[in-house]
């Protein structure tokens, strides 16, 4: 009896998890994921600036990286507000967006665009 209840629960989970995940696909990603993405692109911009300064990568390639960061910035700008539920969350989100914006500007200054 216990086993069949356990099996039922497992079946329910098997059906529910994909449905819930699928339902979640329409909503913005959680705040921590969006912050991770912004921080990752900020670090990418800093590394690209450093590598370009050392003559390791071309302007053509740096521009593509900048475009990628720009796209991530635009996406986060429109969706991060609805993911931030508290004032502290909003402050984190704003700081992460600011950092990325600054990193993009610094990279643009580096390549002179």
């Amino acid at each position, binding site marked *: 009896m216990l086993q069949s209840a356990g099996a039922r629960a497992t079946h329910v989970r098997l059906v529910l*998890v*994909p449905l819930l*995940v*699928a339902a979640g696909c329409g909503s913005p990603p959680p705040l921590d*994921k969006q912050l*991770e*993405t912004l*921080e*990752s*692109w900020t*670090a*990418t911009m*800093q*590394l*690209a600036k450093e*590598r370009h300064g*050392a*003559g*390791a*990568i*071309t302007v*053509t*390639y740096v*521009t*593509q*990286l900048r475009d*990628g960061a720009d796209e*991530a910035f635009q996406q986060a700008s429109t969706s991060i507000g609805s993911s931030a539920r508290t004032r502290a969350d909003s402050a984190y989100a704003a700081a992460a967006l600011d950092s990325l914006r600054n990193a993009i500007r610094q990279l643009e200054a580096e390549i002179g665009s």
Partner: protein
Amino acid sequence: MKKWGELALGVVTSIGGFLEVGSIATSAQGGAEFGYQLAWVLLLGTLSLAMLMEMTGRLAAVSKRTYADLLRERFGYRFFVLPLVAVFVVSLLVLASEIGGVAIALQMATGVAFRWWAIPIALLGWLLLWRGNFSIVEQGTAMLGLVAISFAVGALVLHPTWPTLGRALLPSLPSHDRARYWYIAISILGASISPYLYLFYSAGAIEDEWTIEHLSVNRVTAVFGNVFGGGLAIAALVTAALVFAPREIKVDRYEQIALLLATPLGRAGFVFFVMTLFITCFGATLEIVLAMAYLLAQGFGWNWSENLKPGKDARFSTSYTVLLLLAALPIVLGMDPLSLTNISMVVTAASLPVTVIPLFVLMNDGDLLDTHVNGWPSNLALVVIALISIVLLVAALPLQLLGGG
């Protein structure tokens, strides 16, 4: 002397052919997000592929028939439709990803958006297949693919912590983000054990007219070639672990990955990365489209050989022509090559049982292999690979949903 030449060429071919869009992307993602921790998955994938290639090569050399031929003959046409459709769909996705990889390499070099390169790449591939022969496809691109050794150089320059890397070759559980960890693990396995690799290898053994005399060449090629090739994939993971992980850079776009070699090797590293991506993905494009055309031709009993003039095997030649153009379409339409790669690697992993499980039956068929049937160690390894493939089939979809990001 000729045999040593074949052996060296075979090993070089496997090394140069191992890295491609999937293994570069998934190794970089694994290293960036989990450091060295996923190195054991690459080792597992490499050993599994080496075993599968050795067996399908032995099967072809002894029986003088390809694995696809034998699947149809021994299991009947009704069963054959299952691996045919599964491998066909999966390979088409991987083919599109490889074309995307070549296109991204050209975008990095020229600044022209990747989608504009898809059709020229497909046409170049078609031209090489139409005008060239099997040696050009097998050896030409693989020899050039040795440029991928730059990943090993990059990793060495960064001074990895060897004891930590050694420990990472043993399976371990993640300390964070479990769904993502297993999702990347499945993607790595999908990239390492693609069915097209052993189907192409098996057809290649027939194209190269292997006999029982070639069994030692087969063994050395399959084992050493893949172990060295897998070593390069581990080097890519190590490089990502040392360049991206400390900076908390995650790989969201393919373009980011070039920074991996530009950091330890400077401008040369950037150039080597672009060349590696271009050559290995282009080589894989040719191999996959041939593997698919072989599968169709062998399944339907058409004439087939890359060494024949296209007029002599018209349906085979038409197949690779149409497939190349079809696979270029998602890239022309602007589908993100990295997303396409991740999806196709997970789907590949899920498709493995239909080609791995029947191999167990064939490798124990005395009528086909006589004294060259599997011994117990090979059977044990095949059972383990089959069990892994079943786990991958069951886990692929939930992990795509939970960890796909």
